[in-house]
């Protein structure tokens, strides 16, 4: 048993943290949030040049051929920096789907461009409100064309391709759609976290290229979402760690009644509770990262555990971040709300924690 990342992996993380500390300051996130930009292009270009987009993509498809233990640590740093780029949509979801289910030809066609960042991909799953089961999809694929609407789709405005969950005959298939092609209407939606934009995609007979076997879509989607749950979980962990750190720093410097407010026991105990929640998430994350990196069957349970604990940790940490800042924490000017927005956005992505809890019980019970 060895529950530590290797020195090489820690080096990758350190490098990522240093790079983002310089090139993804919170002003960068705020600029996207306030300007309505789709993402921060310089930062996207930067991480692409560093090869982060292809971290887990094999070299023959233009990737770095590193592994998921490296990718999760990069994800943790992107989360810590609240990086305003379509990394999750393009790498954890779209590229992973193609890696998992793509034909050799599809891999050759898409992965190099996704790895280089010239192409941005996303994953079109949800269809409006409530929980969503792929087999409930009302979007159809007739073998050639896709028809129907998907929303919200993360980075649906910026993406060049989307992997779409659609009905094909009686079953469900995944279909790659070129979003710049004919028969695709896009509309940006007002997002809770404008630094991670959402869009509505309407397909009116848009040309589609099936990904994986017909009728296997639900199965593949589940596998892809499990993998994304781990990677997004690490982004949430990074965000939660930073939110707690910012809470700590502020409460130590803010004085009331002649004392730093961090010396008030009620706040101390609540910060301790946040710390514990973050540690629980990290430990589940280690488990899931290991299972992801070596294809262990425990991934199904570990991914759900990570998804839930990381969502809870980031949500609590961001709520306490504002609360312990008091009035200024509620101002647009301070950065607290950037964390609060990101926490909600990530908790709403790829299925809510409640859905994952429910799934976890079935998976544990089946194991």
């Amino acid at each position, binding site marked *: 048993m060895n529950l530590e990342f290797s020195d090489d992996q820690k080096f990758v993380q350190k490098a990522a943290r240093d790079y983002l500390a310089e090139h993804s300051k919170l002003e960068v996130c705020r600029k996207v949030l306030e300007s309505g930009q789709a993402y921060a292009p310089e930062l996207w270009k930067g991480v692409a040049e560093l090869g982060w987009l292809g971290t887990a993509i094999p070299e023959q498809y233009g990737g770095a051929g590193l592994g998921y233990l490296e990718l999760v640590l990069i994800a943790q740093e992107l989360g810590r920096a609240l990086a305003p780029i379509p990394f999750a949509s393009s790498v954890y979801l779209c590229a992973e789907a193609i890696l998992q289910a793509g034909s050799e030809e599809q891999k050759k066609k898409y992965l190099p461009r996704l790895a280089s960042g010239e192409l941005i991909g996303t994953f079109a799953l949800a269809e409006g409100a409530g929980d969503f089961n792929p087999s409930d999809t009302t979007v159809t694929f007739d073998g050639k064309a896709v028809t129907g609407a998907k929303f919200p789709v993360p980075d649906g405005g910026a993406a060049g391709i989307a992997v779409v969950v659609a009905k094909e005959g009686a079953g469900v298939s995944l279909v790659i759609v070129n979003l710049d092609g004919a028969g695709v209407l896009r509309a940006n939606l007002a997002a809770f976290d404008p630094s991670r934009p959402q869009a509505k995609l309407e397909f009116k007979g848009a040309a589609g290229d099936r990904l994986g076997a017909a009728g296997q879509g639900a199965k593949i989607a589940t596998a892809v979402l499990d993998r994304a749950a781990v990677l997004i979980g690490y982004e949430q962990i990074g965000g939660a760690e930073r939110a707690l750190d910012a809470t700590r720093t502020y409460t130590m410097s803010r*004085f009331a*009644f002649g004392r730093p407010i961090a010396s008030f026991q009620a706040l101390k105990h609540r910060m301790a509770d946040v710390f514990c929640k973050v540690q629980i998430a990290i430990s589940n994350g280690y488990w899931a990262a290991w299972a992801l990196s070596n294809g262990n069957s425990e991934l199904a349970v570990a991914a759900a555990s990570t998804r839930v604990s990381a969502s809870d940790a980031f949500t609590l940490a961001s709520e306490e971040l504002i*609360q312990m800042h008091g009035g200024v924490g509620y101002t647009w000017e301070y950065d607290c709300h950037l964390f609060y927005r990101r926490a909600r956005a990530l908790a709403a992505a790829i299925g809510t924690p409640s859905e994952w809890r429910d799934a976890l019980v079935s998976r544990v019970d089946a194991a």
Partner: protein
Amino acid sequence: MNFDDTPQEAEFRAKARAFLDQHLKRLDPNAPGGDEFERETKDDIARAKAWQAKKFDAGWAVLTWPKEFGGQGLGRLENVIFNQEEAKYHTPPPIYGIGHGMLGPTIMAHGTQAQKDRFVKEMARGQVIWCQLFSEPAAGSDLAGLRTSAVRDGNDWVINGQKIWSTGAHYCDWGMIVTRHDPNVPKHDGLTYFIIDMHAPGVECRQIKQINGGSGFNEVFFTNARVPDSQRVGGIGEGWKVSITTLMNERVSIGAGQGAGRVKDLFRLAKKVKRGGKPAIQDSAVRQKLADFYITSKGLQYTGYRTLSAISRGATPGPEGSIGKAVGAPLSQQMASFASELQGAAGGLLDANAAPDASWMEGYLASPGIRIAGGTDEVLRNIIAERVLGLPAEWRADKGIAFRDVPTGTAKK
């Protein structure tokens, strides 16, 4: 024990409704409420003033105030009944809460006869609007730690410093401000309270943008702003005592205000969205949450009524009023969070056209402010612990020493 109106109350309620029907349009009871942004346009203010004048002239304004001050000398109960009924109609934004709920009563309690004559009745009719100037960047929960200075100069006082979180200051005509006239005595002893003309030279408002995009609060800067001594409320050094009157009234209005919240809307949402293929309201986990929200909301509502009922029988409003906000504020965040999650992926949107009910996500953005403004969760728990349960006060690093010697940590920064 009676939760229903007495015949007299029922009659009063009917009279109120009759008056409201004449002048206002009823709300659709099935339309979700939603948390409003604090965005009062000039036009909103004008409409609010017009409506207040109508109420005043028809004898429906500041019902609990004595007749001599333009009120009706009625009890808090009647006041609540009127508010309950008014809440069923489309009205301009409420901009008189602070003036009528807190500042007017403070002047009535501590003001000179001249101040009462000059200001209170005018305030009642609402053609001039009042704001509160208490908090400061370095004095929030620790209000008595405020630094805005008042220096005597002949018959005037010269005010310098900065206030923050002043609701509506940017459209207000008058403000009530607590200042420090003497930094050489312990902090509670060096405070003095004034009425200040918001249009006077040296008074500058800057709206604060909130995380939800609203900007109901202001920073207010004072640069050699002059206030005549005749506008001092209470004695020199009595500023803390006077402020307490203001804050106690705040607690009462808030305490009664919170309550049932938006549970009805939440049930409505749970019928609209699906969980596991069925309407979410049929999901056992959702039902457990709905029940807890309902029960806590009802409990808060009736806790407020219990206080009210006691007050209407002559009891003085006590610190129990803090329960409403201590529980209601976090509850509003928990409900908004739950309702956002109910909407699944759409819970990550603020888009009214794409989400079943985006007002919940707006509410999730607004709720942190509710937990902070007008007494943080922490302050309210301290009040309940110390003033209701009688537990020992927190150790004080600033006790019995001159204000100027109180540690501020600025050295550390």
